[in-house]
């Protein structure tokens, strides 16, 4: 692999020293695993994991029209998000298909947005284009603000050991606050994540990344905290029923059929926005639906595998993984309507060989569902 052209996060050398296996992820040289991927999944489910998310994009939209801009380009209703709250949204084109999915952090006047690494340049150009004529500025803070995630049931206890002046037990899910972390003042701390576990994401100056990373690992050691790579992150999000751009959604897959309506607001007061008309049409007459599948067979469903019901091709896989949490192989797939009912028996076509699978309830895993 030619790694010279890849970007590196402030923690790149730390991963190398930990013996991580590094891969190209969205143009970044990132740790895919430090040890066995399935063990890393279990660590997050049973204890706690630390993730380097330095590759993700972080934008600050500032100015009197910041919220107006976001309500034009994003699917959620930014003006209605309470200050201090966070919402999932997508940036769609006129055709209703997304160029990215994002988190919106609502401030008094401004909006802070976290985007996917691989879509950063396109998102930035898109936002800047639609900001023309508006009284706001789109600032890419990705290089001046690093990002770590702490995920798992011990996250609050571990992070609190390093956070002064704010009580994390009072921070609710999908809310953010400001605190002093490892002596660094005014750190944005959000109760968010991409694993299905309780957890936090923190935004720190890159010059402090190593100090915070190492302090967290030391402070969390007694509670089982370990560094976790992107391989486990993908399995964790899939188990938790969370979409990944490039799989469940992309230039050709709209968020309605992907089951992401919770991030879309058609309310008249939001005004018109990019993709609204197209998505209303999809909502009125969807053609396919994203489903979960489980399979007892040995093969793991992979993006691109076709799905059959008898002799009829009814869909295709978009994500797949071994799931150590529910102890079977899992995947997500699109099927034409009429094949989406839980319990429907389908077959995977893996290079001409058939393997039985069944439509499973989503999400595969929920920490609150017993």
């Amino acid at each position, binding site marked *: 692999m030619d790694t010279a052209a890849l970007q590196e996060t402030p923690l790149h050398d730390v991963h190398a020293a930990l013996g991580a296996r590094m891969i190209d992820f969205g143009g970044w040289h990132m740790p895919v695993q430090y040890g*066995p991927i*399935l063990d890393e999944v279990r660590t997050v489910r049973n204890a706690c994991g630390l993730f380097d998310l330095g590759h993700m994009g972080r934008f600050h939209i500032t100015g009197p029209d910041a919220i107006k801009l976001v309500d034009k380009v994003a699917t959620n209703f930014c003006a209605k998000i309470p200050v201090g709250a966070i919402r999932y949204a997508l940036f769609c084109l006129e055709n209703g298909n997304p160029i990215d999915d994002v988190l919106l952090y609502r401030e008094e006047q401004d909006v802070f947005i976290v985007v996917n690494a691989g879509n950063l340049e396109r998102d930035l150009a898109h936002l800047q284009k639609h900001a023309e004529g508006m009284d706001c500025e789109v600032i890419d803070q990705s290089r001046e603000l690093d990002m770590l995630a702490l995920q798992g049931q011990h996250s609050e206890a571990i992070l609190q050991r390093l956070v002064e002046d704010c009580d994390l037990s009072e921070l609710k899910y999908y809310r953010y606050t400001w605190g002093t972390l490892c002596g660094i003042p005014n750190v944005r701390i959000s109760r968010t994540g991409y694993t299905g576990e309780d957890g936090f994401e923190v935004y720190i100056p890159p010059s402090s990344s190593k100090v915070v990373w190492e302090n967290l690992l030391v402070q969390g050691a007694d509670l089982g905290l370990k560094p976790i790579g992107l*391989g486990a992150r*993908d399995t964790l999000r899939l188990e938790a029923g969370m979409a990944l751009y490039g799989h469940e959604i992309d230039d050709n897959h709209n968020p309605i059929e992907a089951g992401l309506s919770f991030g879309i607001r058609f309310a008249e007061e939001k005004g018109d926005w990019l993709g609204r008309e197209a998505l209303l049409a999809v909502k009125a007459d969807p053609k396919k639906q994203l489903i979960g599948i489980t399979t007892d067979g040995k*093969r793991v469903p992979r993006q691109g595998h076709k799905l059959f019901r008898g002799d009829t091709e009814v869909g295709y896989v978009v994500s797949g993984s*071994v799931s150590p949490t529910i102890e079977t192989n899992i995947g997500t797939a699109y099927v034409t309507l009429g094949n989406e009912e839980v319990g429907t028996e389908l077959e995977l076509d893996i*290079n001409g*060989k058939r393997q039985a699978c069944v439509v499973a309830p989503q999400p595969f895993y929920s920490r609150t569902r017993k």
Partner: protein
Amino acid sequence: MRPDDRKYTKAHEWVLLDGDVALFGITDFAVEELCNGNEGDLVYCDLPEEGRTLEAGETFGEIESVKAVADLNAPIGGVVLETNEAIEEHLEILSTDPFKKGWMVKIKPNNKNLDGLLTAGEYEAYVAEKAH
């Protein structure tokens, strides 16, 4: 140093001539790439039917880890005589002993010329370069 009694491909397969038959397998480097030294990360290995005729370079099977699938390609052509069924149930053999117990396919080669393939020394150099 990897065994020098056999030849290697740039796709990390090996071939060992033994009288009238030849064995195929994959190298420790291939296994490492797939599972990073964690044998539990290997989930599946698909080997060909006995009697199948393989052309040199033809894909005869697949090996799958938690996060990746790799094709298995025939270093030389021939007819499949036997496959190593122990692998399908005990994928860890590929991690612990890829060059002996981890053989995958036994073939009757249609030609015993291995000139186009890498020697152990050449393969070492190729892998060392890739690791940088």
